[in-house]
């Protein structure tokens, strides 16, 4: 009989990491007119982040001093919902989502002929620190409703450390 791997979560870090990600992603240079919300989308449009799971403890090691070092993974999906009537509009939304992903990876993105680079991740509370934020997929259309409203999504994962 195979031993099932037990999945453990950093439950205490969930709120702190979520707040930091929300604050960070709303700093994206192009977002000057609408706020990205948390797990909340209107039927006809908006942008929101939805966590896929809570923060999963990927690895956990203990040193000889007695300190524990965890690497945790916080996967989430960024959704743009809207009525995209033209192919050009869809291309723009796809490009925007992909650029958000690149920007979160600390890559340089060009918006309206200006270059933007995220220099550092925000601090987390306690002994937690962001290690990386990376795209897990390119952006794509996940669903379309009868009234023409489409959901475009990109999967992103934040990796952070926790020492105690």
């Amino acid at each position, binding site marked *: 009989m195979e031993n099932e791997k037990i999945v453990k979560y950093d439950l205490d870090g969930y709120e702190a990491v979520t707040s930091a990600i929300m604050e960070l992603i709303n700093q994206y240079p192009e977002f000057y007119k609408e706020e990205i919300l948390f797990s909340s989308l209107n039927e006809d449009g908006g942008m929101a982040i939805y966590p896929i799971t809570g923060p999963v403890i990927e690895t956990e*090691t*203990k*040193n*000889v*001093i*007695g*300190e524990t070092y965890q690497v945790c993974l916080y996967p989430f999906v960024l959704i743009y919902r809207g009525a995209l009537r033209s192919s050009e509009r869809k291309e723009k939304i796809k490009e925007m989502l992909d650029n958000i992903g690149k920007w979160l990876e600390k890559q340089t993105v060009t918006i309206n002929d200006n270059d933007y680079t995220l220099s550092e991740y925000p601090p987390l509370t306690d002994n937690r620190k962001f290690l990386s934020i990376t795209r897990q997929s390119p952006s794509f259309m996940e669903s379309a409703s009868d009234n023409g409203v489409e959901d475009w999504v990109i999967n992103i994962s934040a990796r952070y450390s926790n020492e105690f």
Partner: protein
Amino acid sequence: MGKILRGCRAMWLTFDDENYTCLGKDSDDLSIETNPDTETIKNVQGETTFVNNGYTPSMSNEYIARSEDAIYKPLQAIADTLAVDDERTTATLVVATLTEEVKESSTKTLTGTGFKVPVKVVVNSDGGGTSGYAIPFTITEDGARTQGTVSVANKVPTFTEENEEGL
């Protein structure tokens, strides 16, 4: 009661007897190899005698450099200059078994018994992988161990030598 946690056996290294670094932050296994020199002799009468000629303790540490560590700059100097002189390669090792894991000393004072011993430091390599800049080193005891008690606050030890009566 029960087994003693590994974090209770704490080890510090200092190059100036004032600023200490608690060893093992990046290690899940760190030991002093006692290197005993022993032999078993059988005489012509069939009797077996075991002889222990003593120990030559040493310890190898896969040290990941941290700028805030007191031992970082002296180790960097040895690595940069390949120093072999006593002035730059002499240090002091303090070892103690504490009442709790040494990480708890950030919030309370811990006590324990152990020893202090002069050591010589040799850098084994310089660089390492992508997890962090590594300066692995080996220390070899270079003198007699002084027994005593240790008080620890914020992972910094204060060593008190045991008197002749063992108090």
